[in-house]
Structure formats: C-alpha cells, structure tokens
C-alpha cells in the first residue's frame, strides 16, 4: 500500500528525530513532529479518512487547503477537524467520521446504491403524503444528518483574545504576500504578515521552481515586519478589522491597509468517480512530498492543463514514484520548461486526453483515460492505466473570501477561466494569484507593486495606481475541466455529493438563478463553502441556460473564511458581576442574593431556609422599628449646566424649573409614544445642578437616551452617569430619625429642619453624604448617598447606631412588599411595553402646562381618546390564602381583561393585596373582578383605592 516516508531533503517541516505515536480509530500509527494529522495519516498509509455526507462514499485527502469534507476527521473532542489544521501530537486520537460500523465497511454505504432515487432536493419531493407521513419519515432522515459527532461531555477548554494594530496587514506569506510585506515595510511602516502555514513562503516551498523562501524569510523577520504563522485570517470586517485565529487565541487586529495575498484554490477535474481516495490536487501531492516527506502513491497519473502539472510529475519521479502518464486536457499544449523536462525524462505524454473514470472501491486502482475532442466531450479512444494516485492540476480559483467580507462582489474574469475581484473595498489591496497573477514571477512583481502602494497610502501621499504585471490565469486555468459520463457520479461538489446531473436537473426544474441553484441543490453549502464547486456550477448553469458566465454571476463568500471554533470567538467570556460596597456585609448576614441586571442584591437575609418568614420579619421591622437596605444599585446621574432644569423639563414629565434648591421631586420618563420607561427622583443641589436617580436596570438606557437627546437639542448641560461612584442606603422605619441622629454630624433632622422630600448635604459618621428624605416603603426614611469607597463604613456606622433599637437589614423582597402596600409601582413590573402614565394612574406626575416633554403629544392623544385599561389596587377577601402570581390574568365574561402585576400577602393589612390592569370602565373602587390563578381556579378580587397603607402619608411625612 502506498504512503511512504521519504528521506531528506523531502519533508522540510518534519523532524525525523522525533517520532510521535497516534491513534486512528483502533489502530496505533506513527508520524513525526511537524506533521499535521493529514500528512501523518497519509504517511502511515491511511487512504480513507471519512465517509461522504449523502452517499457515504469512502473519501480520502483531496486537498490540504480547501477545508472540504473529505479531510474532516474527529480529533480528540473536536468534531469536523480539518486534518491539515491539526498539528500532530504524541498520543493524539483521531477518528474517521460519518459511518456506521467501521470506516472501511460503513453500513450506510448502501446509500450510494440509492443515489438514482435521491435527486437534489429529494426531500422536497416526498415523505409528506398522506398527512402525517413526514412525522414518520423525518426522524429517520434526521438520523442521517451531520458529519462529526459532538461530545456532549467535552471540555470547555481555554481560549483567549489578543488585540493588535498595524499600518499594513498582509494576509498570505506566499510570493506575493512576502513581496508585498517587504515593499510595505520599506520606510519603516508597521507590518503584520499573517500566514496559516507553520512557516512562511507559501507555494515557493512546495512548488517545483520555487526559489526557496529563505532569503525572504530572513528579510521578513527583520525590521518592522511582525510575522504570524499558523495563523488563520478568518474574517475581514468593516474598517479593516481582522479576525485571526492562532491556536486557542483570537487576534483582533486593526489595520490601516490590508493586502490580501491569499493565493488560489486548485480545482477538481469533474469526471466519473473523481472522489475516489487517491485522487488529489497536484498542490496536495507537492505539499505532501516537499513539506512532509510523504509520497502519497507509488504509481501515478497526472492530469493537467498547464506546465505546473508537469512539474508535479517530475516531483513524483524525483521522490521515487512511477508516473505512468501525463494527460493534458489541452489539444495542443504549449511546450513549457517542465513539459520539456518530463518528455526528456521519458514520461508518456498524452496531449488531448483526460481522466474519464476512476476505478477501485476504497482506493483508486485504475483510471480510464479518454481522448478529448472539445469542450467536455471525448471520443471513443480509451486507455486504462493502473495507478494508485491521480494528481489533478487543471484550474485555480482565487481566494477572494476576505474581500467578500468587506462587501466586494466577485465577477467572472471575462476570459471564462476563473473568478476575479470586483471593485476593491476601501483600504484593501489584492495581489498575486488571488489577483489572477499566478506565475511566481508575476505574483512576486504584483506583490511588490501592491505593497508599495499600501506603503504610499499609509504615508498619506496620493498613491498612484501601481504598475502591475498582466494577469496570466489563462496559462493556468482550463476553461472546461468537466467531463460528463453516461453513468454519472461525476462530482461537482464533494462536500454535498452532488453530480453534474444533479446540477442540470436542478436547473431543469426551474431553479435557474445561480443563488437558487445553490439553495435548491445545496451546492456550495458544505464545509468548503463551494471552494471546489462554485466555478463548475456556474459553468453548468451558463451552459444549461444559454447565458454568459457574466450574466450568471458569481456567488459571494460570507465570513468566516475558514470555519472557526465557538470557543475561539467566545474567548474567556466576559460576564462581569457588579457588587456594591456593602456586599461582604450582606454575605456575612446570610443574604440570599439575586441578580439585578449585572448587580447582585440581597433578596432577603438569614439564609435560604425560611424565605417567607425572613421577608415577613424584615418587613415588620421596618414598619414597627427601623431597617436599612442597600440601594447602591440605583442609577445616579449628575446633570449640570445653565440648562440643567430646562433639560429635565424636556426629558421628564414633571416640572423642575421652579423646584427649590434642597428639594427632591419625582421623575417619570416616557418615550415618544408616551410609554413609561423609567422613574426616580431629581434632587436640586444648586440652581444649575441636579442629582437624579434612575432604576437599577434602566440607568444605562436613560443615560444613553439623555446623551442622544442632548446631541439633538444641544443644550448647555453636562450629563454624567455616576452610578458606580456612589453607594446608597435607605434607612427606614419610625425609629430611623433616632438612629440617624446619633451619627449625623450637626444636621438638623427635626421634621421642620429636614422635612419630607428635602435634600441635604452633610456628614454622617464623618462621611460626606447626600441625604434625601424619601418614602418608597412608606415610612419615615432617609436615603443616604456617600462615596462608594465609604459605603461599607457608613453601613457599619448605621448598624452600630441602631443596635439599641434592633436595626436589621432588609432585602429586595421585603422592599417589594412594603412598596406594594404603599401603592408605588415598579417600572418594568407594573408597567409593560405600552403603559402610559394615565393608565398607571400617574396623571399627577405630568406637568400639562409644559410646552414640551418627550411623549407629551402621545399622552395628549391617549388622554383625549380615553383609557382602555387602568392599573388599580385590589384586595382579596380576608380569608383567602391563595396569592395570585404576577401575570395571572384578569378574566371578565370569559375574555382576557387584564393581568396582575404585583401581589403579596400583607401582614400589616391582614389580606392579599396587589396591583392589576383592569378595563378602564371597571376600575372604580369597589368593583369586583376575577383572577384566574394556577390550575384555572378563579379568585374574586375587589378594586380598592391606593395606597393600601397609610393613605394620608402620615408616617412617611412625620
């Protein structure tokens, strides 16, 4: 069997002194350090790597660059690994993919026999009659889905990210890219040179006639060129933002200019059984021999349409293989240097011949050659040639993926030979084979020209159009390497198992647009994304529809340029948790924490055992004594400037122009449709300075919206989000004044000196604070804001000061209950995506006389049209123990008439209370309504006036 290791000088990448052992399925094999999984497997004599997607045909290495399904293996926990991209390591474990039983004897290979019954889109044609049939068939078809198998116990692994910057990024370090990098760096520009191979040099290292990359490599490492090898440029996004994957690291690089020198993809020859293991691109043969010292076959046939193919034949001979024949698709080939040499070496040259059929089951054994008479046509002359390797060098397609990511649309190059770039995106150059300059000389000169242009562009000069060599694609690319066979199985797309007939039938069925052919047949949808199939498909469309290739058009390539791991994109993940300054104290007190946006807040204290009891105790302590709650997560905004009051007047619904310094006032924000989006209080600290709070979850949006509005309005105002700079504690309960008096340095806390809604600045326990008399929970209370760094100190001081009274912290749950008793809404819970202030019974918070505020027009319209629903307080009968859940529905006459937004059992009041939306005409106190709770039970509730607790506000005002 084939697969022989060669001696030096072949195998420039491998270290023969370091053999490595690995497993392929059940077999233990060996390779060398420097091998890829692909080279190691072929070097160890493995020819079948996987089974194909649809027919489960045996597949071997076809290309080492195209990332096609043929070379997908399972590598450890990684499914669908491209064998060439997996470095060989000691003890590595590889497996084939997509088979049942064994890779050699795949039970599903029977699918191949059914090929004639499975036209493109066959699943659209059947399985749906009679009704319900699909439910029977679908699981059976679904079982065949997929290639690799994901290990659901697989490790997360470590991935991270790095950031880079350069003046010029060059992608591809082949002849064009190296030349471009050197030219770009000539005046000292910062250049990053990115190449996916372990070493730079590209085709120069593997193609016969390559000059060797060593001098360039030396230069490349000098000066200002930063070389990244083993680095896959996965995407080129707006403003030259490059994603480069290197091992487990994603580099994100911003480049002033980008030179794309990504070369070209060698194309298959489309003929019967062109997918047999042992048939591969000529570049793959060269690469195996030169870089890895692997001879992929003993007896080879080369099919070519250019002089490079003859070079590969010479490589094979030099490496010890027999080249049985070189078939040249061209009827009268030009005599190039390699062809002359091949003839001199005595290799049989067959001009005007093509490979017409491959034979052999799991491995190529014989190839039938046929005489070519014209485009895709052959005569009756046949030659059967024994061989275990067929090297194909008939055409190339430029790799234009990165340009497509930036919006370039590829075109056909006009000669019918290949694709070419459409108009280049801003700041990007294209050089070498990717730009249709294939020969070493043309590619190098092209790289120099495009690199020099990039240098001039970053230097800021008006870059003259570079003088570039002429495209030479016609020398390398045959216009029709497609040979239909009466018995079919000529694969256009190896990924998706699609043949010439499949494409033609798709078109015949009416799907004539190139995009529709693709979508209907799935050509080009597989792992290689059409690297091998796009051009052939478009040629077949042009032929079948009588259009030019230009009219057919070229399909685009979407990111990523190569499949990229989820882990690589995710990196280490960034899931910040925000903790308040008093966090440790909460933990010490046994707080059960709950998320509030990015923050963690105590839901209640005392551990998770008896939540209801803890909440009730905390609430009772506030009602009867004194409690404190950490409200540091409240949004906080500083609004300063001559227009500060005028700005608030426009942003919020209430009136602020005449608000006295030293007073706070409720703020309610609506959007342009009059929908409530946030609330809080505004404290007037000075004529031109307001300190405004916002909800924990809303502050970022409020801040962003304020900035946006002010960008529109251009008022004299400065807006700062100082949420993180201030800690805040709400001290609440009838004993709160007494506690605060012990630590408030010289502040007059008397009801007259510091009345309800007043704001003071002063010191508490020596800490500079802003104090607000507010009443969210409905008791005498103080919201004390201090610099974040002193939050814990302030907390400790208040706890200490209240020790005598039995002060205790309370959590969010108790606060929710207390505020409900007081009838205060929580924006987002008691409001939804359409709630306006009138529905929420907050007409009092709207200053109707103002000329303008955001939402005024809409609220006015709603007001005139009349309300359809209203948020009301309700109570259940005293004996009712069931508590409706938030969002249980209000049902009236069998219809949905509203919903509960908040509900709780109130210990202070002795029954269940809540807030609910009900129809506006049924919103009057005393009106009964029904709530449907779990299991469909109906509870009778009654509308009651708000607030439930302390309706005259005597407690909070005291």
């Amino acid at each position: 069997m084939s697969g022989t290791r060669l001696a030096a000088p072949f195998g420039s990448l491998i270290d023969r002194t370091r053999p490595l052992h690995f497993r392929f399925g059940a077999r233990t094999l060996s390779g060398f350090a420097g091998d890829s999984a692909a080279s190691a497997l072929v070097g160890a004599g493995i020819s079948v790597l996987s089974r194909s997607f649809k027919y489960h045909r045996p597949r071997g290495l076809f290309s080492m660059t195209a990332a096609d399904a043929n070379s997908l293996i399972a590598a450890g926990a990684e499914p669908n690994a491209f064998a060439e991209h997996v470095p060989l390591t000691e003890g590595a474990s590889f497996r084939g993919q997509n088979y049942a039983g064994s890779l050699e004897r795949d039970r599903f290979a029977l699918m191949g026999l059914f090929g004639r019954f499975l036209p493109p889109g066959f699943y659209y044609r059947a399985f749906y009659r009679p009704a319900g049939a699909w439910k029977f068939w679908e699981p059976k078809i679904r079982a065949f889905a997929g290639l690799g198998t994901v290990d659901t116990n697989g490790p997360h692994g470590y991935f991270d990210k790095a950031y880079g910057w350069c003046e010029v990024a060059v992608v591809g370090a082949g002849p064009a890219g190296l030349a471009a990098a050197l030219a770009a760096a000539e005046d000292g520009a910062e250049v990053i040179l990115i190449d996916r191979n372990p070493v730079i040099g590209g085709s120069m290292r593997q193609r016969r006639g390559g000059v060797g990359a060593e001098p360039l490599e030396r230069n490349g490492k000098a000066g200002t060129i930063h070389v990244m090898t083993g680095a896959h440029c996965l995407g080129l996004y707006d403003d030259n933002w490059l994603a480069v994957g290197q091992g487990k690291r994603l580099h994100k690089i911003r480049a002033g200019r980008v030179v794309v020198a990504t070369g070209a993809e060698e194309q298959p020859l489309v003929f019967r059984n062109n997918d047999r293991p042992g048939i591969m691109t000529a570049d793959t043969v060269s690469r195996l021999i030169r870089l890895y010292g692997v001879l992929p076959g003993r007896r080879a046939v080369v099919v070519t349409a250019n002089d490079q193919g003859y070079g590969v034949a010479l490589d094979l001979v030099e490496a010890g293989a027999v080249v049985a024949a070189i078939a040249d698709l061209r009827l009268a080939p030009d005599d190039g240097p390699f062809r002359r040499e091949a003839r001199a070496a005595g290799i049989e040259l067959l001009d005007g011949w093509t490979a017409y059929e491959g034979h052999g089951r799991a491995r190529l054994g014989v190839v039938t050659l046929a005489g070519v008479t014209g485009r895709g046509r052959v005569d009756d002359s046949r030659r059967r040639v024994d061989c275990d390797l067929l090297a194909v060098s008939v055409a190339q397609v430029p790799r234009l993926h990165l340009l497509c990511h930036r919006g370039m649309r590829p075109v056909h190059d006009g000669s019918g030979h290949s694709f070419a770039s459409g108009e280049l995106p801003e700041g990007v150059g294209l050089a070498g084979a990717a730009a249709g300059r294939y020969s070493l000389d043309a590619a190098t000169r092209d790289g120099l020209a495009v690199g020099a242009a990039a240098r001039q562009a970053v230097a800021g000069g008006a870059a003259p159009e570079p003088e570039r060599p002429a495209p030479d694609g016609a020398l390398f690319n045959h216009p029709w390497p497609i040979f239909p066979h009466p018995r079919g199985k000529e694969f256009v797309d190896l990924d998706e198992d699609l043949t010439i007939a499949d494409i033609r039938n798709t078109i015949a069925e009416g799907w004539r647009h190139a995009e529709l052919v693709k979508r209907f047949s799935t050509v080009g949808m597989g792992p290689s994304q059409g690297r091998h199939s796009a051009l052939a498909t478009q040629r077949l469309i042009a032929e079948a529809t009588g259009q030019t290739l230009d009219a057919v058009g070229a399909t685009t390539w979407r990111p990523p340029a190569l499949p990229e791991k989820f882990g690589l994109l995710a990196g280490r993940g960034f899931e910040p948790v925000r903790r308040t300054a008093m966090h440790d104290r909460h933990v010490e007190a046994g707080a059960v924490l709950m998320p509030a946006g990015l923050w963690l807040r105590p839901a209640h204290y005392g551990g998770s055992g008896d939540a209801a009891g803890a909440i009730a105790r905390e609430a009772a302590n506030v009602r009867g004594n004194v409690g404190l709650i950490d409200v540091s997560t409240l949004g906080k905004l500083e609004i300063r400037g001559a227009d500060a009051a005028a700005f608030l007047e426009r942003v919020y619904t209430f009136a602020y122009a005449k608000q006295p310094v030293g007073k706070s006032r409720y703020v309610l924000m609506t959007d342009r449709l009059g929908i409530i989006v946030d609330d809080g209080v505004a404290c007037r600290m000075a004529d031109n300075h307001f300190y405004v709070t916002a909800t924990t979850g809303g502050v970022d949006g409020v801040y962003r919206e304020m900035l946006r509005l002010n960008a529109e309005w251009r008022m004299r105002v400065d807006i700062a989000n100082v949420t993180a700079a201030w800690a805040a504690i709400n001290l609440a309960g009838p004993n709160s004044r007494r506690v605060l008096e012990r630590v408030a340095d010289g502040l007059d806390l008397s009801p007259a000196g510091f009345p309800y809604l007043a704001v003071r600045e002063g010191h508490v326990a020596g800490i500079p604070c802003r104090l607000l008399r507010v009443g969210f929970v409905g008791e005498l209370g103080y919201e004390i804001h201090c610099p974040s760094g002193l939050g814990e100190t302030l907390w400790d001081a208040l706890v200490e000061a209240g020790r005598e009274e039995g002060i205790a912290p309370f959590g969010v749950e108790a606060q929710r209950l207390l505020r409900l008793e007081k009838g205060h809404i929580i924006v987002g819970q008691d409001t939804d995506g359409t709630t306006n202030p009138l529905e929420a019974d907050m007409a009092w918070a709207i200053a109707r006389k103002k000329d303008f505020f955001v939402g005024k027009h809409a609220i006015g319209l709603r007001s005139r049209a009349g309300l359809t629903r209203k948020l009301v307080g309700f109570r259940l009968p005293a004996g009712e123990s069931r508590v409706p859940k938030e969002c249980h529905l209000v049902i009236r006459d069998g219809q949905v008439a509203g919903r509960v937004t908040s509900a709780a059992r109130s210990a202070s009041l002795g029954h269940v209370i809540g807030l609910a939306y009900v129809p506006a005409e049924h919103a009057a106190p005393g009106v009964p309504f029904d709530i449907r709770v779990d299991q469909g039970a109906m509870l009778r509730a009654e509308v009651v006036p708000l607030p439930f607790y302390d309706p005259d506000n005597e407690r909070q005002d005291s």
Partner: protein
Amino acid sequence: MPFALLKYGLRRRYRPVPDLPPEPDLKKRYDVVIIGGGGHGLATAYYLATVHGIRDVAVLEKGYLAGGNTARNTAIIRSNYLTPEGVAFYDESVRLFQGLSEEFDFNILYSERGHLTLAHTDAAIRTARWRAEVNKHLGVASEVIYPDEIARLAPNLNLSRDVRHPVLGALYHEPGAIARHDAVAWGYATGAARRGVSILQKTEVTGIVKDGDRAIGVETNRGRIEAGQIVQQVAGASTLLADMAGFRLPIRTVPLQACVSLPVKPFLDPIIVSGSLHVYISQTPRGELVMGGASDPYPLYGTRSTLDFKEGLMANMLELFPFLAEMKILRQWAGMTDMSPDFSPIMGETPIRNYWLDSGWGTWGFKATPVVGKRMAETVATGTVPELIRPFRLARFDDIELLGDKGAASVGH
C-alpha cells in the same frame, strides 16, 4: 421508499417537470403589482390566484426569488405571543403552515421540535407566565416549566445553578417548529406561477407613479408598469419604498445577524431561546446548528456581518452548552429588519389609495408568511381589511393605539 422517489430513480431518463415555469415577459399593466418577491409577497400572490381568482399579478423582485429575509431568517415558527391579537394571528399562521406541504405538493420540512424560551430572571419568569396564560386562554399550548422538566426536554442544556445566569424556568411551547424557509417561498412561488402569476426577478422598483392620492403604477429598472393595486412587502426596505410612495413609516431598519455551524449528528431536539443571554438555537435536518442573537445596536440599511456579533453570541452559547467550544461556525449573514415602535407589524391601508402595506415585521416575519399572504390577498381582493389584521393598521401610531408584543419578540431589542 416513497413512490415519488422510485418514479424518479427508475425512469430511464429523468424528465423533470419544472417547479418554476420560465420567467414570462414583462407586461405593461397588471391588475395587482406586488413589490417584493419574498415569502410574504409570493404568498400574497399565491392566495390572490388560488382563493380569489386574481391571476393578473406581477411580483417584482429586485434580486432573486426569496433572497432577502426569507433566505436569511432562522425559520422558527411559533404562536406563543403575548397579546390576544398576536396569538390569534400567529395561530392561524401555524395552522396554515401545517397543511402547506400537501397543498403545495412540495415538502416544506415542517418539523415540530418544541420551543423553549428560557427564563434567567424573575422578570423573565413573569413574562413567560403572562405569555403562557394568554396562550392557554386562547387554546395555544404553552406552559411555564421548571428545570426538571427542561432537563427532560433538553438533556444537554447546562442547568447548573452555579453559573452567571442560572436557568430558573422556561416557557415551553410544544407546537414550536422549524421549516425549510426557502421551500415555503418556493412552494408559494411555484403555485402562483403555475396559475399565471408573473414572478419577475432582477426587477427593481425605483418609483411609485401616482395620480393625486392614488397609486397607478411603478417605475422599475425595466420601465414603467401600470397597476390596478399595489402591495408593498419589502421588509428592510419598507421605509425607502414608503418614501417613494410619499408617506412616512414609524419604522427603523436594524440589521439582524445569524450564523450556522458545521453539521454534526443530532443532539438537540427542541428550539432553545434565551432572552437574557440573547441566544436562539436549533438543529436543522442537515445537522447544522442555526443560531441567532440580538439585533445590531444601531439602525443600518445593510447586510454586512460583524465579528462582535459572533463573539457575544458564542460566549452566551457556551453558557448554555459548554461542550460546544470545539464546534465551528461555517457561515454568518445578516438581514435587515423593519422594527416598528410597538414591535408589532403594520398591515393594511396607507395614505395612498390602491397602495397596500405589509411591513414592520422586524425579526419574526417568516412565521407569519402564510397568514399574511392569505389576509393581504383578501385585503387586496375585497378592498377591505379583514378583522384579524385590523389591529395592525398603520394609523394606530397616529392615535397611539399600540399593540404590546415587545415581550414576545424572542430576544433583544
């Protein structure tokens, strides 16, 4: 093996019956001109021809058939909306979907996989309950379920409490389904074209011809076309077309991106959505994971892809499925979504007579394709807006009669 495939395989030489007849020549006038050859436009044409016998219809598509958002969406079908109007509407859509394969004689690969909207916060549980209660009331199967039950439906999902955003519960919508999005549009296109509807690709509308406040035709890159009635069904280009017609829409066009992985053997049955983590994911019959996230954070008329979309999405994906780190994204893309202020669509009359509107579909237009087609066809054919879609009128923004389906849009807005 199904008979249709046997027939195909045993025939000596395959003579395909074209699904789609060759494109007809452009005429000077049609009774109805539909702007936009996506799923909605094609479905409207189909029902005009089949239900109302109106066959002198042209569907004008600037690109290729169903190549816009129809080709770019993630093909999820569900009716677990929040408002009674929304639920009733989508419920009709789901029922139509269920019969389409037979009706078309073309399998749209409709697959009921079950749909889980994960809740990671109290607020999300609240919304889930709201949706479940409204759905159940209207006879749509939705339930709030908790981690034990979630684990049974999606055994691979990370339900650990020890993560940044633990799963507290989920809204489970058993009829939630996926379908082959292209096949839906192709089925409508084929059915319409066979009945005489002209589907004209690469035909771009460049202006609306009016006589006073009445639309009488369109200008295109292929010349002027007269029309008795015009229907605008162009998703992300809605505002641009409305501008041409001379009225304004309260719509922002925002890109929405999605991506697909390399195919793997099936491991995920239900459709998983997480609003808090901005993720939705399903596994297709090919074995690919189709994944999407939040809309882009800014309006744009464009379909470029971004890196940060994938970075954010994948970080969240690995929160839910930590073992997917070695999976690979094969392809990403973007569509242009037309977002209305209340996250509900806009259908029916416009200030221009004989000019009908179907837009504001944002991120959920695919799942409404059949019902929109049917009801817009009814609208055009009868000249009256049917009850079912009347709540979605454009004028509701003038008098602020908003619909509140914001909470039911799957993820991030």
